[in-house]
C-alpha cells in the first residue's frame, strides 16, 4: 500500500459521483477535441485541396464568408501577364444544396485549366467540352449524393448528367461536384463572374518573388486579394471566427468540467472532514492532505481527459459520416491536439482541486476526538 492507493481509494469511495464527474470532464474535453479538430480540419482540408489542384497562389476575397465573394472574370486577364505566373485557372465555387443534400461544394472550373489535370478518373469520363451538360463527382460527393456514372443530377433548375467519378487527392476535391465554369455561371446566372483564380508559378520562384507577386496583384485588383495558397484560409475572417467559436465553446464546456470537479472535490472534503482529522491526528502533515486532494482531482482530470479524447474522436468520426458534413472537411485530430486536450483536463483537475485542497488544509484536527 502506498500514498497512491489512498488517492485511488478516495476516488472509488463514491463511485457514482466520481463517474458523473468523469463524464462531465469527458464531455468538456470531447468538445475540445471535436470542435477544435473540425475547425483545424477546415483549414487543413482547404490547404490540401489547394495542393491537390497544384495551386501556389490564390486570388480571392474570403474576408467575410466561407465561400469567396464573386468578382469580374476579367481580373484573370489583368494578372495573367505578371512575372512568375506560369498558368492561371478561373473558378466559381459555391456551397449549394444539390438534390437531397443540404450543402455540397460545387466547383465550376475554367475549361482546360490546370485544376482539371489532377483529377484522376475512377470511372466514366471527363466532360467532352465546356458546353456539355455534364459533371464529374468527387468520390465522396458521389457517395453522399448516391450517384453513379450515367445518373442525372439536378443543380438549381438545370438537369445535368454525371459522366465521371474522380479522385481529387483531397477531401475538398473528393467532396465536390465539378463542372465547367461557363456551365456553372449559366446555372447560377453569374455570367462573367468568378470568385477564385488559382495561380501556378514558374518552377524555382523564390519566396520573396511570391510575396512580391502577391503585392503586385493586390495593387492591380483591389476587389480581390492574392495569398500564398497554404495561408489562404488561415487569413480569412470566417476561419478566425470558426476557430474562435470552437475554442470558446470548448472552453465553456471545460469550465463546466471545472465546476463539476470542484463540486465533487468540495463534497469529498466536506464529507471526509472527520477522516482528514483522523489522518492529521495520526501524524499526517497538512501538506500531505493538500497533496491528497490535489492528486485526486488531477487523476479525475487525467481519466476524464482520456475518456473525453475517445468520446471526441468517436464523435467527430460519427459527425464526419453525417451527410451534411461528409466530404466538406476532414477533421484534423493529431496526437498534439489529443495530448493538449489531456493536458487541459489534468490542469482542469488541479485547478478545480485548489480550493477544496485549501479547505482541507483548514480542518482542525481536534475534531477527530468528537464523535
Amino acid at each position, binding site marked *: 500500500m502506498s500514498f497512491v492507493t489512498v488517492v485511488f*481509494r478516495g476516488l472509488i469511495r463514491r463511485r457514482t459521483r466520481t463517474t458523473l464527474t468523469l463524464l462531465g470532464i469527458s464531455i468538456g474535453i470531447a468538445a475540445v477535441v471535436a470542435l477544435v479538430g473540425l475547425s483545424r480540419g477546415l483549414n487543413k482540408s482547404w490547404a490540401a485541396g489547394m495542393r491537390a489542384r497544384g495551386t501556389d497562389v490564390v486570388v480571392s476575397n474570403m474576408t467575410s464568408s466561407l465561400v469567396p465573394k464573386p468578382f469580374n472574370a476579367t481580373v484573370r486577364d489583368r494578372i495573367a501577364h505578371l512575372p512568375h505566373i506560369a498558368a492561371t485557372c478561373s473558378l466559381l465555387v459555391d456551397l449549394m444544396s444539390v438534390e437531397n443534400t443540404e450543402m455540397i461544394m460545387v466547383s465550376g472550373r475554367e475549361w482546360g485549366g490546370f485544376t482539371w489535370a489532377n483529377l484522376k478518373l475512377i470511372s466514366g469520363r471527363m466532360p467532352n467540352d465546356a458546353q456539355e451538360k455534364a459533371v464529374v463527382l468527387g468520390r465522396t460527393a458521389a457517395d453522399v449524393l448516391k450517384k453513379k456514372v450515367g445518373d442525372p443530377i439536378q443543380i438549381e433548375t438545370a438537369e445535368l448528367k454525371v459522366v465521371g467519378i474522380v479522385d481529387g487527392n483531397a477531401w475538398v476535391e473528393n467532396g465536390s461536384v465539378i463542372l465547367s465554369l461557363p456551365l456553372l455561371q449559366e446555372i447560377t446566372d453569374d455570367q462573367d463572374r468568378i470568385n477564385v483564380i488559382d495561380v501556378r508559378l514558374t518552377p524555382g520562384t523564390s519566396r520573396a518573388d511570391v510575396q512580391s507577386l502577391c503585392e503586385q496583384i493586390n495593387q492591380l485588383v483591389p476587389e480581390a486579394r492574392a495569398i500564398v495558397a497554404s495561408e489562404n484560409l488561415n487569413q480569412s475572417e470566417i476561419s478566425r471566427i470558426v476557430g474562435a467559436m470552437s475554442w470558446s465553446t470548448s472552453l465553456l464546456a471545460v469550465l463546466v468540467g471545472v465546476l463539476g470537479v470542484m463540486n465533487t472535490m468540495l463534497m469529498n472534503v466536506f464529507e471526509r472532514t472527520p477522516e482528514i482529522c483522523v489522518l492529521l491526528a*495520526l501524524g*499526517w502533515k497538512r501538506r500531505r492532505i493538500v497533496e491528497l486532494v490535489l492528486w485526486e482531482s488531477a487523476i479525475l482530470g487525467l481519466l476524464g481527459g482520456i475518456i473525453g479524447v475517445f468520446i471526441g474522436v468517436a464523435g467527430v468520426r460519427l459527425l464526419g459520416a453525417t451527410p451534411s458534413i461528409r466530404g466538406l472537411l476532414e477533421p484534423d485530430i493529431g496526437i498534439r491536439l489529443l495530448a493538449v486536450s489531456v493536458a487541459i483536463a489534468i490542469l482542469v483537475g488541479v485547478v478545480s482541486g485548489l480550493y477544496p485542497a485549501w479547505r482541507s488544509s483548514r480542518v482542525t484536527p481536534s475534531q477527530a476526538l468528537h464523535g
Partner: protein
Amino acid sequence: MQPLLRSNQSATTDRVLENPVSNAFEAVGLKKDFDDGAVQALRSLDLQIPEGEFIAITGPSGCGKTTLLQLLGALDRPTAGTLAFRGVSIPDLPDPSAYRSQEIGFVFQSFHLLPTFTALENVQIPMLETRMPSAKRRDRARELLKSVGLERRLNHFPSKLSGGERQRVAIARSLANNPSVLLADEPTGNLDSDNAVMILDLLTKIQQEKRMTLVLVTHDDRVAHRAARIIHMIDGHAVSDRQTGNGVCQ
C-alpha cells in the same frame, strides 16, 4: 524526525527504566477557552504525568477531559499556561504532526478506521508519513494485527469487523510508529461489556509490556479503576488525583 523530542526512537523504554520518575507531560496553569472565552473547558489545570504511567481521566460530560487529551496530543493549542512533553513546550513544537506521528498513538471512541481500507491497510496509514519501505510497513502491520489477535482478519474491511475487532485494529494502528504515549478517548464507549473488558485487557497488556504512557479518558469508574492513577475532573478543574494501586509499571 524531531531530534528535539527524541534522540533515539527505540530508546523510549530504556529511558523510562533509567529514570522511571521523569515526566512525560507537565502542565502548569493550563487553560483552554472556546468561543472567545464563553466556554472555559480547562481552568488553570496543573498536572504531571510520569513516563510509563497508566492514568485515567474521569468526569462528567463537558468537564474538559477530552480537551485535555487534545492538548496532550497537540491537536489544539492551550489558551494559557504551559504544557510540555519531556520538557519541550507542546504549543511551541515546530512540527506538531511529527510529534503526533512519532510520539503519540490515538485510540478513539468511534474507532475512526478508514472504511475503504482493509485492517492491514488501516494499520499502515500512519506509517505512510515515515520513510519505511512498503514491504516493511506491511510486515509491521501484520505483526501488530497478530499481536491484537486479528491475524485472521487482515484483509477484512471495517464494515466486516465487529466493534471489538475494529477497536483492536485501531489499537494496532495507534502502535504503528512505536509511540511512547497512547491517548485513548473513551476506547470502550461503543463496545459491549465483554468487548470492553477485552480491549481494556489489551490496552493494559500493551502499556505494561511496552512501558508506555497511557492516558485514558472515560466517564466509567470501572474502566478508570484499571489505571494506576485516576484524575477526576469537574468544570475544567482536577478535583481529585489518586493512586489505585493497579497498572503500575514495574
